[in-house]
């Protein structure tokens, strides 16, 4: 376990290095710009980079994540200096042609230098952290051991591990860290909104000037970053559950490509760093959608945002590739398609979307990036470009993305519900197919985000109908859940509370969706708080509640101890009502004309009181999640021991003692019955026997070189 002393030395180094970084930054700021801003971008950037690397150094020493971060810092500066040098050479050799080429600016380097530097930083991180080591050996024609054994204890979580369970936990913890960052941003701007007029995010640059941004600019940056950081955290959370659970459910010993799995996780870490760099490098004011033409002339943080999302996208793509290959190739004996656990179906449906559509958000962001760097004219009407094209490319991913977020969550609901009502899951086949149905219909609905964007009007009606079609497979799921609960012997430990909460909240999110799909209504609702309320309902119901349910449910499997039941219930009963107040309040003022994405509103509209209530509700959610965090970390040491089949589940992972050993099942299992026949006499899902097709030391990794 982590020692207090280790954490202490980490914090001490954090403070020291932060001070050093801050001084260097101030010095550079003074040298280049001839003036000092206490909260300027350069000092802040240096503070951040130095402090974070030093913290991990104190915590963990110079390997794994520390080395990755240090290499990222060095790579970023090397890349940026390289471009600056080339620009200097261009100016020196050919002054007439390259007159006015900027070498240094308020953010130290010029924009192209930062972009190239950030890219070099990501690549350096990947090599520094060590996730390329084995592949580089293969490139050199050398062999590597099929599997690297992890050291026991907490240290394996800070370095490259090939074990899908370790990677799943790495994903989950990173997701929780990002949730807390994104949530903090939300609380900051929620406080600003508590009352009309500017509270502390002041538009006057003499009163508020942090990271070269005035108050409202900072509001925009925080609002945009809240969006994207939460989205990345959800993607990581989804990967976390899928990575941990899917190989256990299908009876594999690891994912199909463990090295690719580790790569997919570690590439998300520098991506998160880039998103935080966006905050200090001038921020950006487009919201997470990044529409041009605004994004083609937003501050430089925009580029860091684009690169960060692009990099995180690779995590999602490669992770989902792995999931599909794993499920196709490594299922236990007897696990036919219609006997797969429902969560596996959800994982497949999610992965199909993430594998394909993610490329298009990457492409759309690249196009804007190049437009800014090279003056290309994709979305610039004066050069024959088309801004609406961006929205098509962008939403082709970003609408299906919400199904990437919610499908695993809905899978968790279907997976857990039968366990806690002790009844078979109603309509297994329909549920399995409805996940695929949502995924496939989800590809045809993207332009419903663009009813007011000026696209061709004849496109509106088909997209309206396809959008409403999504309600059909989603309705199938609700019907099945209600029918499963009906007449069951309901138990309500914490995971089940979150499952029930998810159903209620997702129902609210679901029924507020079709009104947005109607063109006539959407023209009124578009860009109001109604949409914000609807969106948060779907994502909390579809992801956040099930995510918490999954953590409470599978925590004992990973740790061997359970989370505290009392504090879990406090978490639930504090979060749910506050959350309902928050989103219903948002919808209420939205219907009455509250615009979204604005830092201030007119007091005569009479929204002050509602906004105050919303802010209080937001803080209550924050407190409840803080309780969850404390519970999460304290229970690792002090939680009640739970090594057996705690929830009395039929699922294979609960038939062996917790925590799960390194290569999963010592004895392979064979599927001999239906997965969810709870309460049926003599029914059996899995049978452990040495006749299963895998021997004990079988390792799944494919060696491509010999």
């Amino acid at each position, binding site marked *: 376990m982590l020692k207090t002393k280790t954490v202490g030395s980490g914090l001490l180094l954090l403070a020291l290095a932060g001070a050093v970084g801050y001084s260097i930054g101030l010095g550079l700021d003074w040298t280049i710009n001839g003036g000092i801003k206490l909260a300027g971008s350069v000092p802040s950037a240096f503070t951040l980079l130095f402090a974070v690397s030093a913290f991990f150094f104190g915590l963990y020493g110079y390997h794994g994540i520390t080395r990755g971060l240090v290499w990222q810092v060095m790579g970023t500066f090397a890349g940026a200096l390289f471009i600056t040098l080339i620009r200097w050479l261009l100016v020196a050799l050919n002054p007439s042609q390259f007159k006015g080429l900027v070498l240094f600016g308020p953010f130290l380097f010029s924009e192209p230098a930062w972009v190239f530097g950030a890219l070099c930083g990501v690549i350096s991180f990947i090599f520094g952290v060590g996730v390329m080591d084995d592949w580089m050996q293969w490139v050199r024609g050398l062999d590597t051991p099929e599997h690297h054994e992890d050291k026991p204890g907490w240290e394996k979580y800070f370095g490259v591990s090939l074990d899908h369970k370790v990677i799943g936990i790495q994903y989950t913890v990173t997701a929780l860290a990002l949730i807390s960052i994104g949530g903090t941003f939300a609380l900051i701007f929620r406080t600003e909104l508590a009352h009309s007029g500017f509270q502390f995010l002041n538009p006057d640059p003499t009163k508020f000037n942090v990271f070269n941004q005035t108050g409202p600019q900072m509001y925009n940056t925080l609002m945009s970053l809240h969006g994207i950081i939460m989205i990345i955290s959800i993607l990581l959370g989804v990967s976390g559950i899928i990575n941990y659970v899917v190989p256990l459910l299908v009876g594999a010993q690891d994912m199909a490509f463990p090295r690719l799995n580790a790569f997919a996780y570690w590439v998300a870490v520098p991506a998160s760093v880039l998103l935080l760099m966006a905050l200090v490098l001038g921020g950006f004011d487009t919201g997470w959608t990044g529409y041009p033409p605004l994004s083609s002339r937003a501050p430089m943080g925009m580029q860091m945002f684009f690169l960060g999302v692009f990099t995180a996208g690779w995590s999602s793509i490669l992770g989902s590739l792995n999931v599909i*290959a794993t499920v196709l190739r490594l299922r236990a004996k007897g696990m036919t398609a219609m006997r797969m656990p429902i969560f596996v179906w959800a994982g497949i449906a999610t992965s199909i979307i993430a594998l394909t559509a993610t490329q298009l958000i990457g*492409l759309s962001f690249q196009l804007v990036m*190049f*437009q800014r760097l*090279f003056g290309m*004219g*994709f979305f610039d009407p004066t050069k*024959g*470009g088309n801004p609406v094209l961006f929205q098509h490319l962008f939403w082709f991913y970003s609408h299906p993305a919400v199904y990437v977020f919610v499908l695993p969550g809905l899978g968790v609901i279907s997976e857990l519900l039968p366990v806690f009502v002790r009844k078979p899951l109603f309509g297994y086949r329909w549920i399995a197919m409805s996940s695929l149905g949502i995924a496939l219909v989800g590809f045809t609905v993207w332009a419903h985000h663009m009813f007011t964007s000026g696209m061709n009007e004849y496109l509106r009606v088909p997209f309206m109908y396809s959008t409403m079609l999504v309600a059909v497979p989603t309705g199938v799921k609700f019907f099945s859940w209600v029918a499963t609960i009906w007449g069951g012997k309901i138990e309500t430990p914490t995971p089940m509370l979150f499952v029930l909460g998810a159903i209620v909240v997702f129902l609210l999110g679901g029924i507020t969706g079709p009104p947005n799909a109607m063109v006539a209504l959407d023209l009124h609702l578009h860009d109001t708080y109604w949409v914000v309320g609807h969106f948060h309902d779907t994502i909390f119901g579809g992801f956040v509640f099930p995510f918490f349910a999954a953590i409470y449910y599978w925590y004992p499997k990973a740790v061997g101890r359970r989370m505290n039941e009392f504090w879990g219930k406090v978490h639930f009963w504090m979060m749910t009502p506050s959350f309902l107040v928050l989103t219903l309040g948002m919808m209420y003022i939205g219907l009455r004309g509250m615009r979204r994405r604005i830092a201030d509103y007119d007091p005569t509209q009479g929204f002050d009181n509602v906004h105050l209530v919303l802010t209080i509700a937001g803080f209550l959610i924050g407190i409840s999640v803080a309780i969850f965090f404390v519970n999460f970390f304290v229970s690792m040491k002090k939680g009640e021991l739970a090594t057996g089949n705690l929830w009395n589940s039929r699922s294979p992972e609960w038939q062996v003692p917790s925590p799960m050993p390194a290569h999963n099942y010592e004895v392979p299992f064979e599927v001999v019955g239906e997965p969810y026949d709870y309460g049926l006499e003599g029914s059996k899902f899995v049978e452990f026997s040495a006749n299963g097709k895998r021997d004990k030391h079988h390792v799944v990794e494919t060696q491509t070189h010999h």
Partner: protein
Amino acid sequence: MEHKQDKSAMLGQGVFIFVYLAVLTLIEFGIALTFNSTVLLVAIALVKAALVLYYYMHIYKLNAEHEGEENSYEYKAGTNRIGLWLFLVSDSFVFGGLMVMRINLLGLAHPPLNQTLGLTVTAVLLISSFFMNRGETQLHNGDREGFLRNTMITLILGLGFLLGVVLIEWRTVPAIAEPILHFFGEAEGVEPLKPSSGAAGSAFFMMTGMHAFHVLSGLVLLLIIMKNAKRGLYDEKQYPVEAAAVYWHFVDVVWIFFYPALYLVGTIFK
């Protein structure tokens, strides 16, 4: 004896498919010069892509049965094959997105480009695919020298394509590019396409740039398998060679669609 016939049959098949592809490309070019039917261009591109997918990339191997024990090399190679093809599916969405961008911005018109140079680089890439297939088949037949020879030819042709696009067509170094373009029949005083010069320039540079990046990564893969083959690898376990070859052919398939889209379709974009 029968086995030997089988071997030469595989090599012969590669030649036949190449002849089909070459003839189809010439027909394509002819259509563009004469009556310019977009429908026919799309149809020919689809036929060419199907030929490469089936005969050069062996897509049917995805469906192979009797792969042996789960722990065997064959089974693991099968898993890797699925992974590779999933990646290609994902990657083709990038190129699909670029195509959508191009159609949206330019419609049924193509950027003003040098047709002779376009046909030349296309031919070079197509021939490289032929040699890649030949090399892979020879390695399969146990002819390591033949494999190395043909892969080297592939590599040189790939490099030729890359330089043809990035150096000459992009006019990166005008001093080198201009005389060559002149040799290819470029008229004097033509305004060169630039990334910043408008929709046509943006679409052209983005599409060829993304494709060139893939060609470059394919070349790196070819270098790796050549180096390792010289070290004596791939006697039994030949999946890495198959993977590099499939990736190389994929780059070719992308160009099968990009070539008509950039050089042949419709009128010249104003």
